[in-house]
């Protein structure tokens, strides 16, 4: 199996995730798209482990998962606290600093 295919799949998922971050207005969905991008990076790392024949890529992927879990916890807490004060999860509504 050519590991290039996995890298191309990772690139596709990363691009779809980035489109989602740019297009979706719901903060939760945009955040899930960020998670998709992290997943795509994980796939690329695991495929990289396959290319080089070592386990370093898989360890890196594991650490990405740890950081993603921490990021989700803090990000969701921020979304919840914004929702509590603004009663909205739309990213367009968080514009208090706008002129």
């Amino acid at each position, binding site marked *: *199996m*050519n*590991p*290039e*295919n*996995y890298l*191309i*799949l990772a*690139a*596709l*998922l*990363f*691009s*779809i*995730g*980035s*489109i*989602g971050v*740019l297009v979706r*207005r*719901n903060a*939760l*969905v945009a*955040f*899930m*798209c960020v*998670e*998709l991008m992290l*997943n795509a990076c994980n*796939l690329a790392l*695991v*495929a990289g*482990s*396959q*290319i080089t*024949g*070592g*386990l370093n890529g*898989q*360890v890196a*992927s*594991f650490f990405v*998962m*740890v*950081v993603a*879990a*921490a*990021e*989700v*916890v803090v990000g*969701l*807490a*921020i*979304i*919840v*606290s914004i*929702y509590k004060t603004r009663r*909205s*999860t739309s990213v*367009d509504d968080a514009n208090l600093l706008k002129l």
Partner: protein
Amino acid sequence: MSPMLIPLVTGAEVTFWIGAPLAVLGALGLVFSRRAVYAALSMAVAMISLAVLYASLDAPFLAMTQIIVYTGAVMMMFLFVMMMVGVDTPDSAVETLKGQRPLAILAGIGLAALLIFAIIGSITQPAATVVEANAQFGGNPQGLANLMFGRYIFVFELASALLITAAVGAMILAHRQRVTPKRDQRELAQERMAAYADKGEHPGPLPNSGVYATTNSIAAPALLPDGSIAPKSISQTLLLRGAVIDPIPLAKVTDQTFAAIEAVEEDEDE
């Protein structure tokens, strides 16, 4: 490539050509589905497909971690927050920046094209596998543990510090300070009675939803004795969603049945 490896290789290939389209479909569903819950479900599909792909890439530990951490913990947390902030928070169709959506999609396609053109043909070394690396310490988790607690021990320590900080930070962020004293049951009851005295509001429980011959759904409002709809018998959430069933046709069936019964009784009287 040795003939021994051919069954293994084709197995991975079959898994890839099943898992990869599913992952892409899930990702597209995440971006393009209107409702947030459908987006979350599509995301779960993409994540599980990726876990299958990890398994086919000789990374069983990561496949399990993917399912437990991502589809188990992270997606559940997303769904909890979605339930908390209201599933029906609409995704506003108003564009704050003109032409941002088509441009964003164009940029995404451009990024994909750029990455794919960079990837194609970039791997020149012969295909390797992690089979030997896995076998070195008697298994994939053992091999990962050797690296994690050996070469990457400081990264591991930092990760643990990060997790603790994130947990404390999330608690502080999501904590709400009470600015008004909590109202107890006595005060609530007094408020209800005061509202009854001032505005004539009914102090008792709300009426239940309507029960008809053809439906007893909570979306069907009850009728008052004069035939009009009791507005308080229906949940405000259902009203906002537009899921309320019109009770008048439902009640008409009952009226027709009563009329038929009465006609029979009149016939018997004669």
